[in-house]
């Protein structure tokens, strides 16, 4: 067991480090790297412009940059953001909780309604309600994220509602399809024919049979919520990691981008590992 955990940890660390490196490479090869908006400032003379360009020279060799970054990160220094001129560590410390709350609130809301609705619809099967639910999730899928964010501001609603509305149709669609599939499995059809109550069917038969996939949907919904946070934060004026990531991308802020990628990779891996553990516990209990 201990060995397994150790192996997992090594795999996670390796993936996270690889994620940081690949993101640094992606930024480095994209056009606009080491370009500063101020280069168009007519007041700056040739020497200042040269200095502006040279300010990114330490990042030109990406492997050397990354080695330096890891070396400093081990000592707790995550570097300084170019675009904001502040230590990345402090920026993340300030903003991770904000995004965490936003995403968690959005996820909780979305899951409660999406799963509740999907389970109820799968159990009762009233086709009008089914069509209505499909239309509702269709509407939410089609609304651009920016419109949702704008609506939440217009109606003075919390930003997490916008995140919830973005996550909702996705979770709903996956869970609805998974539940319906389970209901059509032969043993469940038999159980229902024998007159097993709806709740019992749901909890004893349907959920266990689609639990692994549902748990995996839970894992990816974290990613969906995080990517929804980018436009929502940017538009609603929430100072979280999402708006930070967007700003960093537009300014080609390498130190900040690498750290944000590392963070997102870590969250993705942990959500996946969490889903795995839950799936494992569920399957052993079932057995």
């Amino acid at each position, binding site marked *: 067991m201990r060995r397994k955990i150790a192996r997992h940890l090594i*795999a996670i660390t390796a*993936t996270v480090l*690889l*994620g940081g490196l*690949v*993101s640094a490479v*992606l*930024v480095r*090869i*994209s*056009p606009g790297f080491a370009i500063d908006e101020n280069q168009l400032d007519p007041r700056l003379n040739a020497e200042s412009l040269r200095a502006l360009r040279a300010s990114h020279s330490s990042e030109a060799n990406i492997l050397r940059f990354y080695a330096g970054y890891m070396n400093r990160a081990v000592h707790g220094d995550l570097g300084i953001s170019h675009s904001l001129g502040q230590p990345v560590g402090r920026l993340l410390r300030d903003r991770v909780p904000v995004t965490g709350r936003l995403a968690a609130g959005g996820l909780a809301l979305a899951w409660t309604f999406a799963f509740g609705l999907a389970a109820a619809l799968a159990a009762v099967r009233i*086709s009008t309600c*089914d*069509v209505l639910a*499909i*239309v509702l*999730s*269709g*509407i939410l*899928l*089609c*609304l*651009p*994220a*920016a*419109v949702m964010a*704008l609506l939440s501001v*217009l109606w003075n609603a919390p930003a997490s509602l916008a995140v919830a509305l973005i996550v909702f*149709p996705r979770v709903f*669609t*996956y869970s*609805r*399809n*998974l539940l*319906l*599939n389970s*209901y*059509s499995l032969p043993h469940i059809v038999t159980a229902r024919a024998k007159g097993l109550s709806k709740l019992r069917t749901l909890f004893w038969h349907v959920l266990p049979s689609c639990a*692994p*996939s549902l*748990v*995996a*949907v839970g*894992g*990816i919904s974290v*990613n*969906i919520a995080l990517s929804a946070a980018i436009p929502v934060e940017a538009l609603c004026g929430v100072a979280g990691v999402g708006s930070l*990531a967007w700003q960093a*991308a537009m300014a080609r802020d390498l130190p900040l*981008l690498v750290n*944000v*990628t590392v963070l*997102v*990779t870590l*969250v*993705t*891996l942990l959500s*996946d590992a969490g*889903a795995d553990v839950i*799936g494992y516990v569920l399957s052993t209990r079932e057995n």
Partner: protein
Amino acid sequence: MPRKLACLVLALVTAASLAASWLAPAGYATQFREAPNAPPSRRHLLGTDQVGRDLFSRTLYGTRISLLLAPAAALVATTLAAGIGGVAGFLGGVPERVAMSLTNLFLSLPWLFLLITIRALLPLNASPLASVLATFLMLGLLGWAASARVLCAGARALRTSELLLQARALGLHGPRLFAVHVISNLKPVLYAQFWISIPTFILSEANLGILGLGVPEPMPSWGTLLKELEGVTSLTEQPWKLAPLLVLIVVVTSFQLALSRQEVPL
């Protein structure tokens, strides 16, 4: 009944978009400069946009690109997800672990920069078709990762299920077993992925416009039409501008309804 209606709607919208050159009262690029931002009238059924182009015509023409390419890209993404996630879960062991690590990595990387690089590699005077195809292809190639994880979990559960044990006992192995039993059992996730991807890709296409990718002006697409909604005024003061959104919702819902019945025999 809903399914037939949905198929009919899809057929109608497709036919209307194909017949855009006959149905549209004006070309998609014609500018009625004396009437920018006009409300609906007999002359302009859905009003005009900020530079005076007939929105009804633009919606019709925009359907062509979006209705054809978004489902195609969704198909690419779904196939990749099924291939990578499904196979990994089905095989288990080291291949699964490696595939899932890569999937997780894929989910976390800033692909924006890859798109920026691709724009830089395309010539500025690239034909609109090339730019549009490249955009949707990229969307398809980048959009598989999330559902691959769900598919992998589903396939993993199937691997040890009685169903597959029985199939194996009947002599089914390898690709055939995968195609016949695994994929058919993963259908609910595949349908979900396909359905969710269509509107997502339609909207993403417009967002890629900020990188110089996507459908170039003056060609319309649903994405670019919907992007104009991202202002307070269109939401509160010009509700007719929501028309393209309505069409998109109808089409996307029809897709789901059309798929929905096939997938679950009630």
